[in-house]
């Protein structure tokens, strides 16, 4: 067996475009997914049973069905409702819905780990429920589950490869195209796998740096909460 990467590396522009879209998908849906997930975690801990119920149905529906099927449901669902969104928009919606459900469970664990005395102290100082979540609970909850969050959002970036199925032209879609042009599938996917690996490591570094910025206590003292 001889490996020949020349034809693949010659198409670096295509790989770069694919990489750029993968990075964008990951960046946008990390933010939207975290937002949806955190709101759902709060909803699931709410005193209002309707909110708890809606959040639970969403979370369980998503965590118990395959992502590929979810993408198709969103893709064909939106178009049968008369919406014509671009593949990228659909990819963002589907990825957000998917990662939001997993993030909700992670953040719920984080909020559940906050000692009742913390909620009480916030309440007694006159903070509203929302203010207590924002000022008292959010950062310690995030800090406690930060390793899980990091893994979840790296998984999300990797899962974005599935959106090639609805022709979002991200990295895997670029690979599919290149291998069909070059007849060098093994080399193509090796290269793409290495790019994903590098991207995962880069994400770890970004999350680490973000953690330093958002958890100053940990940065200064180096201890766990």
């Amino acid at each position, binding site marked *: 067996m001889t490996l020949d990467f020349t034809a693949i590396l010659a198409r670096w522009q295509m790989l770069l475009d694919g990489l750029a879209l993968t990075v964008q998908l990951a960046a946008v849906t990390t933010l939207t997914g975290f937002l949806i997930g955190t709101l759902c975690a709060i909803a699931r801990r709410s005193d209002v049973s309707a909110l708890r119920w809606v959040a639970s149905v969403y979370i369980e529906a998503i965590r118990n069905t395959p992502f590929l099927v979810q993408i198709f449901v969103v893709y064909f669902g939106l178009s049968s409702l008369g919406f014509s969104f671009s593949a990228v928009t659909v990819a963002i919606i589907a990825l957000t819905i998917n990662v939001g459900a997993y993030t909700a469970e992670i953040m719920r664990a984080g909020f559940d780990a906050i000692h009742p005395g913390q909620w*009480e*102290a916030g309440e*007694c*100082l*006159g*903070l509203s429920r929302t203010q207590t979540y924002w000022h*008292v609970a959010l*950062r310690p909850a995030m800090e406690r589950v930060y390793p899980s969050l990091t893994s979840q959002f790296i998984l999300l970036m990797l899962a974005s490869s599935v959106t090639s199925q609805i022709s979002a032209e991200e990295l895997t879609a670029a690979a599919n195209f290149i291998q069909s042009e070059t007849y060098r599938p093994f080399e193509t996917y090796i290269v793409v796998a290495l790019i994903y690996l590098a991207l995962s490591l880069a994400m770890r570094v970004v999350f680490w740096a973000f953690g330093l910025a958002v958890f100053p*206590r940990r940065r*200064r003292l180096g201890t766990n909460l």
Partner: protein
Amino acid sequence: MSVVVLKNVKKSFGSLPVLHGVSFAVAKGEVLALIGASGSGKSTALRCIDRLEIVDSGEIEVCGHMVHDPGLDLRRLRLDVGIVFQSYNLFPHLTIKENVTLAPRSVKKLDRRAADEIAMQSLQKVGLAEKADNYPEQLSGGQQQRAAIARSLAMEPKVMLFDEVTSALDPKLTGEVLKVIEALAASGMTMIMVTHEMGFARRVADQVVFMHEGLVHEAGSADILTNPSTPELREFVSNDL
């Protein structure tokens, strides 16, 4: 005029009755020590005053707020009442100064400078100004408890509640916290404190309420600790050597 009034307050946790009709009143500037054995209901009574527990029946009036009323404006009650807990409950991810400025900034909407100023004043009162930029875990238990007192003071409450605030501290740290509370009492703050520190109650309290099995069993000036008239209180204080 009374700042805090409890009238025939009853409270059960499920099938477990805790308060069987508790009544007492605290006048402005007065210090009331709530004493009694564990399980006598004194902490529950205190928590009812800040509506951390909701009473089953009876009336509680605090600074004009009807605490037993389901339509109570909870946030306005909390603006008038400060509470300090046995376990400090400082926010671990915030510095001491941030702990103290949080409520003035987000509840009273003060700007950073005004909040910082108030924070430093309250930290000075508890002797912790130089620890402002430290995190709670860098402080001793006594310092953490004083920081928690400063956090409450920064909201300028009309009444302060202390729930066994020295129970987790050794005698030296207990002493430094009690000194802060004593200075606060001298400054005219109205206070209700659940405490096991009999010597302190004797010295500082204007009124002592002894609770026994969910009822006010004996109440009066601090003299009742030296000359108890019920056998239960005599028994209770005799354990304090």
